[in-house]
């Protein structure tokens, strides 16, 4: 029996009917076509499917879609605004903070949720923020450098 689900994703409100056992990641990928969010495991332990839900970084495979009823969700597709990349996206490009790119959406959303809350973090705090996200390519340090660059204001818009 499908149930009604209302949620806002990347600023766009949606009304859907989903089975109670549907995961949020399945709705995002299969119903809304937002395939930027990936899945890497069946045990909620790789962090690849991370999205921002009501300002918090959440593994979208670890919650049911219906638990997100009424929520505001931001996925990697929602980071750029008005044709402009988010500072973190620019920094990831410049610092080579991705290789295969499969973990990148989760890294970016984890980093964004964290930096929105903690604009002046220590390195240890930044490492903690992405400790739930596995990257098998980069060795993480380029991701930390990219986050640091954003924190340091390298990507602030000049007015």
């Amino acid at each position, binding site marked *: 029996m499908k149930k009604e689900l209302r949620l806002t994703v990347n600023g766009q409100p949606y009304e859907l009917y989903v089975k109670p056992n549907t995961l949020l990641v399945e709705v995002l*990928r299969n119903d809304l076509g*937002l*395939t*930027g*969010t*990936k*899945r*890497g*495991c*069946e*045990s*909620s*332990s*790789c962090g*690849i499917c991370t999205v921002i839900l009501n300002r918090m970084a959440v593994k979208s495979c670890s919650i049911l879609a219906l638990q997100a009823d009424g929520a505001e969700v931001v*996925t*990697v*597709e929602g*980071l*750029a605004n008005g044709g402009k*990349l988010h500072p973190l*996206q620019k920094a*990831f*490009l*410049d*610092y*080579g903070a*991705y*290789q*295969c*790119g*499969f*973990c*990148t*959406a989760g890294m*970016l959303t984890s980093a964004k949720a964290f930096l929105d809350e903690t604009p002046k973090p220590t390195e*240890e705090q930044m*490492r*903690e923020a*992405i*400790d*739930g*996200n*596995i*990257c*098998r*390519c*980069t*060795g*993480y*340090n*380029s*991701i*930390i450098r990219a986050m640091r660059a954003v924190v340091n204001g390298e990507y602030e818009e000049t007015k």
Partner: protein
Amino acid sequence: MSDKYAVIGKSHIRVDGHAKVTGSAKYTFDIVLPNMLYGKILRSPHPHAKILKIDTSQAEKMIGVKAIVTGKDTLGHKNGPWRRFPELCDEEILCREKVRYIGDAVAAVAAVDEDTAEAALDLIDVEYEPLPAVFDPLEAMKEGAPQLHEHAERNINVTRRIEWGDVNVAFEKCDTILEEQFHTSSQAHLCMETHGAVADFGYDGKLTVWTSTQSNYYIQVLLAGMLGMREGDVRVIKPPSGGGFGSKFELDSAQFCASLLSQKLRRPVKVILTREEEFTATKRKTPMYYYVKMGAKKDGTLLAKEVRVVTEGGAYTAMGSTALYLTGFYSCMPYKWPNYRYDGYRVYTNTAPTSALRGFGAPQAYFAGESMMDMLAAKMKMDPIEIRRKNAVTPNYEVPAQAYIQSCGLGECYDAIEKYMKERGKLPLNRGMGIGNYAFMSGGIFNWFNTPYAFSAVIVKINIDGKVDLFTGACDTGQGSDTTLAIICAEELGVHLEDIRVHADDTDLGPADLGSWGSRETLMNGNAVKMAAADAKRQLLEFAYAKMKPNVVYDLDIKDHKIYMIDRPERFVSYFDIVQDAIRGKQGQTIIGRGHYTPHRKGMVSPAWGFGVQAVEVEVDSETGKVKLIEIVTAHDCGQVINPVGVLGQVEGATMLAAGGAFCEDQPMDNGKILNPSIGDYKVLRSLDMPKTIGIEVDTYEPEGPFGAKEAGEGLTSPTAGAMANAVYNAVGVRIKDLPITPEKVLKALKEKKK
């Protein structure tokens, strides 16, 4: 590095970057085709058993199930990448009579959705007759052990000997001899995108497969063979790929089952392996029993080395035979051994097959070899760097009958690491620093695949607006080869990186290339790119000469969109104008350049060698045995750096993978069953575990490589485990010879040391 190059040597945003940071890159995992079905694979729960009967009738009746295939639906061909040696092609993929490991595939289902396909697997009734099984290669080699394959007595799959000089005589002349045994563990590739494929077999008899692979050419040819098709009727497209690390250049069960189901149904079928299947039913790193004896003269000159290795092969050959050879070769590197002997045995066992994992046998050899160098230095009271430097290979050295080394920056690497260690000074209690060094190939010379094509080939096409299409079969699995090749193309043609469009994903479009393994793309495909771009440039320059009419003693080149006289650069014409002239002058044809590369007369292994020296600093908690990685510094010779940010990514990424293997990654088994087949249970390095990393690039020029470049990707996994073992020894005085270096092992060794 001056302004010698306009594009090379400067950090560039990757050509696939914007798609990857915005989530618009579409991976195999993301592909949905109209009318598509979903496939799931049934796997053996037994490590060794006869298949007596497979009854699919109940599963077929299930609503939503569209087809089921078993070994009976195949041609019965056996798969393997070593096509020159039919007895090494030993994997049916869908087993017909026998299963040989827990995870061997026996049937596949296509259904309207994944849940239905999964449920249908439970309704397939397979009757097995369990057979005695053997899991340890030393046991499997014994007379009377259960035999996996009829052709392989005592389960010996492959043997390799490499020998020069006379080690027996030489050991007599040694002043110091060391003899030790090591063991290296398994490791999972853990690609973040699991193996997967979407196969679409049309009514025209042609098959298209989208798949995450390291070589779309291999998959094309192997699939055609298994399905009895012409190669040209199989098209393999590689979308952006979520990692390979050595696990994705063999034909796998997802690709084969999706294709077979699609062939039966003439509908697209998607098979994505689960994370558990990825751990249990794809290839993994080769565990090795490693015996080594080496001897030196009083002054530290290395005289003789003898190595015997028995590898846990698992159920099938896969790429493990190459790993066996390469372990033998790398066991002599990077030193000048006048006498050397290697005997390697690859042994079948009832475990998941073992194969290549970033380093391809090298990390195992260097773990033992670099541990031994430190032990030898200690025994002889020599400085660990000094004994290495004294014996290290140098430029223009020939490894007897094996390899020719041209460029070699190993000496500069030692200098850099020595300087760093001096600056670091004396370390506090329970801290230690250890070093390891390595040499690694820039692509393999061997042709076990038996390709009739050049190893790499490229077509470059220049269009009316000056945009350049680069067609190649190189496979970017995340390491950045598309960008590296585009940079080489832009440099040679004198255009900007943004002018290049890379088409590297489709066997219908690009020439064959052996793919991404053995750190080969920069040198091999890069040479083909440079040659193709030079061919296209030559055609453009004909028109430029005609227009500029220089004195015949002057010649022209292109840089930054300007075609200029080399000795009088102030005289130039526009690249864009000449492109237009040339295309008009050729009656409207686009400019097409062709290039290819196959190594010749370069020995047995590789045409060029990357080098590095790494220092690993650790802190050991003597109460718990826990090792903390503090800092890893790598001095690295990859020839001319093409894209600095890309090379740094390789240094750091390889270090992380290798440190994980040395530190915590393992696949313990119970009677052939992998006990930790989930990311929750399989421990990897995460951001908090990752130490500070420093990369120091040493400047050399490799004559065989494009613009002097050579390998920069895979070799970097080589030195870490040995350096870490040496660091632990230097910190607390215990020598761990069995990977990974877990707290339990360190603690046990500390207790034994106290006794």
